[in-house]
Structure formats: structure tokens, C-alpha cells
């Protein structure tokens, strides 16, 4: 067993292991030593045995990030040079950058990589930025390690925020609040079963796999269209299902990890879509990349026109997101595609502000949802990599 939540037996182990934690929290106590044992055990399931190399990579990674962030925090409590800040940022990014870039130079980076490295990097980078801004004043190595190694979300998020996590970790919820959390958690986990193991499974088997075969046999528009829709829906149910497990298990442990999906396919425009799809990632990019970049550009008055500036901001942001997914042409094009979609969306909003007499009713709203859904599906078609397979076929 390697991926968390991958096999039914994983849930069985989880259910048994979590009972003492849940009972403890019911009585207002966090059984920390026991929770640490459970964490070690589940990390071992993912990063031990045949995957021991990943385990070693993870240990080295965590040591590196703890020394780096701890060191920067110490420095920042005395001084605040920009050059040191940039060094710390680079340091936090370094393992991920090496891991992604080395294959291009034909060096095998396996000793650096482990499942979830990109997600842990988000956590480390935000620490450096918030310490720089003076928002994280007290830094506890203990909490930071717990934050990085929080096993329910380690492989694919949702990406939590340190200050939020710390608050939950250091406190035990009131019984009434905790009962509601458990209630929600059980609902989420069962909804996750439905999403990932039933709907996702059928979409994958009878949709994605079937139409991929059909498409490679016969490149017709119909097959392409059906592949696109089934892949897009599969992507949602599979990832949303996983996220429901991760959030549900966090809740059972008294940690209110933020949700990742909020009915993304009913978004009336692309901007709204990104507020509802893989939310913890897009909010991370919004808060730590986009807003900082635009703030800098605006303060230094790099661009005269506000429109140019926001377009440059959006394009760089989504390009970066594409690159983050992997250095492959279809991930990068996927990023650029969404960047363009947001710029078009913005241009339309400006047009609408000038022409206030445009109709706005249930019909235009449905049209908006239809256009957004199909635009997103086209982007996922690019993202799927099937076009690359067709090209090389």
C-alpha cells in the first residue's frame, strides 16, 4: 500500500487507529503521544517498506525546512534584510526545484523526491513569507513539524495555513463543536466513498479508459468530446473524493483543514470557478503570489494601465501554476489557457461595467455556466495529456 486512502484496508486501519483520538477529544483531551504514534504508523504505510527511499527523502526534507525556517525566524527577530529573505525563499523552494529540474539534465532525482513534496513546499514557503511580514511572531519547531507531517493531508493537500493549524492544534474544540465536526466528518468520508470509489471508478473505467481507446483507434470529434467530458468529471470526482477524506479525517482529529471544492461546475464565470476548484491551491497562489506580485508592480508603478498590470499578473500566475504541475508542454499550455480565460473574463467585466443596460437574467446566468463549464473541460482535455498521446500515436 502506498497512496493514502487508496485501498479499503487503509480505511479499516484508520477507523481503528482514530477511535482513541476521537474518544479523547470527546472528553476534551488531545492524546498527543498516541496521535504521534498514529502519525508515524500512517507515514510508515506510505513512506516505508518498498518506499523507504521516499521515507529517507522526506526525513531529509523536513530537517532542511525546519533548520531553514527556524533559522530565518531567529534572524528576522533581529534584522530584516531583503537579501536574506530572498535567500530563505530560495532555500525553501530549492528541494522542489531540484527535483523538478534534474530530470531535464538526465540526473535521477529519486533521492530528493517523495509523494507530496510540492504540497509541503507550499507550507514551507508561506512560513518564510509570513515570518518576513511579521505575521508569525512566535515560531514553535514542534508545531511546525506537526504542521508539515500532518498525515491526513500530506500527499495532496488541502494546503492549510500555519497560524490556522496552530490554533486548532494547541486547542481542543468544545464538546458541542467537536460533535458537529465528527458529524460532518462522517458525512464527508462517506460522500468521498461515493465520489472516489463509485462515481470516479465508473467514470474512469467506462468513460476515460473506454474513450481513450476509441480515440486512439479513431480520432473523431465525437470520441474527443466524450473523452473530454468523462475525463473532466472523473478529475473532479476523484480529487474531490480524496479531498473529502483528507478534510474528514482532519476533522476527526480536531483540525479544521479547509475544504478544497465547492460545486465548481456551477460557476457562472472562470474567476468564480477558481474560487470553487482546488480552493486551497488557488487561494494559496492568490495570497502568496498574485497579490504580492501585483502589490509590488503597483507600488513601483511598473505599468501605467491597470488593465495591463492585471493581465501580466494573471498570465504569470497561471504560467507558474502550469509549471508547478510539471515541465511538460500540456501543463504549461493548460496554465496559459486559464490565464487567457481570466483576462477575457476581466475584459468582459469591464465591458459590462460600461454598458449597464445589458440583460441579466436566469438565461444569461445559465449561458455563463454553460460557457464556463465547457471552457474548463477544454482546459482539462489539454491537461489530460491525451493530445500528446494522439500526436505521438
Amino acid at each position, binding site marked *: 500500500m502506498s497512496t493514502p486512502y487508496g485501498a479499503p484496508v487503509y480505511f479499516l486501519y484508520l477507523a481503528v487507529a482514530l477511535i482513541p483520538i476521537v474518544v479523547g477529544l470527546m472528553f476534551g483531551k488531545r492524546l498527543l503521544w498516541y496521535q504521534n504514534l498514529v502519525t508515524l504508523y500512517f507515514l510508515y504505510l506510505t513512506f516505508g517498506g518498498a518506499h523507504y527511499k521516499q521515507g529517507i527523502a522526506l526525513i531529509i526534507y523536513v530537517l532542511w525546512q525546519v533548520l531553514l525556517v527556524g533559522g530565518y525566524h531567529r534572524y528576522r527577530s533581529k534584522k530584516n534584510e531583503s537579501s536574506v529573505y530572498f535567500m530563505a525563499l530560495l532555500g525553501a523552494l530549492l528541494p522542489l526545484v531540484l527535483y523538478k529540474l534534474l530530470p531535464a539534465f538526465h540526473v535521477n532525482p529519486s533521492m530528493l523526491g517523495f509523494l507530496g513534496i510540492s504540497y509541503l513546499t507550499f507550507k514551507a514557503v*508561506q512560513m518564510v513569507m509570513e515570518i518576513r*511580514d511579521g505575521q508569525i511572531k512566535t515560531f514553535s519547531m514542534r508545531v511546525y513539524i506537526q504542521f508539515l507531517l500532518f498525515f491526513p493531508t500530506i500527499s495532496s493537500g488541502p494546503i492549510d495555513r500555519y497560524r490556522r493549524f496552530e490554533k486548532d492544534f494547541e486547542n481542543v474544540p468544545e464538546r458541542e463543536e467537536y460533535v458537529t465536526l465528527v458529524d460532518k466528518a462522517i458525512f464527508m468520508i462517506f460522500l468521498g466513498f461515493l465520489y472516489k470509489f463509485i462515481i470516479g471508478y465508473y467514470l474512469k473505467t467506462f468513460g476515460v479508459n473506454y474513450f481513450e481507446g476509441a480515440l486512439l483507434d479513431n480520432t473523431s470529434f465525437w470520441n474527443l468530446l466524450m473523452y473530454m467530458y468523462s475525463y473532466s468529471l472523473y478529475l473532479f470526482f476523484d480529487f474531490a473524493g480524496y479531498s473529502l477524506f483528507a478534510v474528514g479525517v482532519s476533522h476527526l482529529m480536531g483540525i479544521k483543514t479547509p475544504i478544497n471544492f465547492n460545486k465548481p461546475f456551477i460557476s457562472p464565470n472562470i474567476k468564480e470557478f477558481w474560487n470553487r476548484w482546488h480552493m486551497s491551491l488557488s487561494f494559496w497562489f492568490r495570497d502568496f503570489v*498574485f*497579490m504580492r506580485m*501585483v502589490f509590488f508592480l503597483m*507600488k513601483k508603478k511598473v505599468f501605467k494601465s491597470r488593465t495591463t498590470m492585471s493581465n501580466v499578473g494573471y498570465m504569470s500566475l497561471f504560467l507558474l501554476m502550469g509549471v508547478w504541475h510539471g515541465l511538460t508542454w500540456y501543463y504549461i499550455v493548460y496554465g496559459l489557457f486559464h490565464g487567457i480565460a481570466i483576462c477575457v473574463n476581466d475584459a468582459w467585466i469591464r465591458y459590462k461595467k460600461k454598458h449597464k443596460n445589458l440583460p441579466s437574467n436566469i438565461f444569461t446566468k445559465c449561458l455563463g455556466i454553460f460557457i464556463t463549464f465547457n471552457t474548463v473541460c477544454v482546459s482539462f482535455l489539454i491537461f489530460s495529456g491525451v493530445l500528446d498521446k494522439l500526436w505521438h500515436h
Partner: protein
Amino acid sequence: MVDKNEFLTILAEITGEDEVKEDLDFPLYDSGVLDSLGTVQLLVEIEAQMGIQVPVSDFDRDEWATPNKMLEQLEQLK
């Protein structure tokens, strides 16, 4: 004390909505009047005109949801 009128003038100018001056519980984000870009513009103007520095990182939209809440936050940051 934070200059309430000064702040509301900036806010109205950036959002293009005069209503934010009248209704201080106006939901700025839920109504779509403010987005990330508008927020950044607001933070830049607050710093330039009012001399209050607001950190961009982890800007919590719930804590800055309405003109009233923004005034509260600014009061704390001053």
C-alpha cells in the same frame, strides 16, 4: 483614530460604488465589488494616503469583509 471619511472615499473610488459610503455593512467580497486586484489597489492607497501598512500575506477576507470591519482592522494596525 483612523480618518473614516478619508478611508470611505478611497474605498468608493476603487470599487466605483458610492453605496459603500452609506451602507457600512456592505459585503464587499460576496457581492463581487472587490476582488484580489481591487484589494491590492486598496492596500496600496491605504499605505500611500493614510500611512498604514497592511501586510498582503494571508489577507483574511472574512476579517475584511465589510467597510466597518475594514475600519476596525485599520484601527488595530495603526
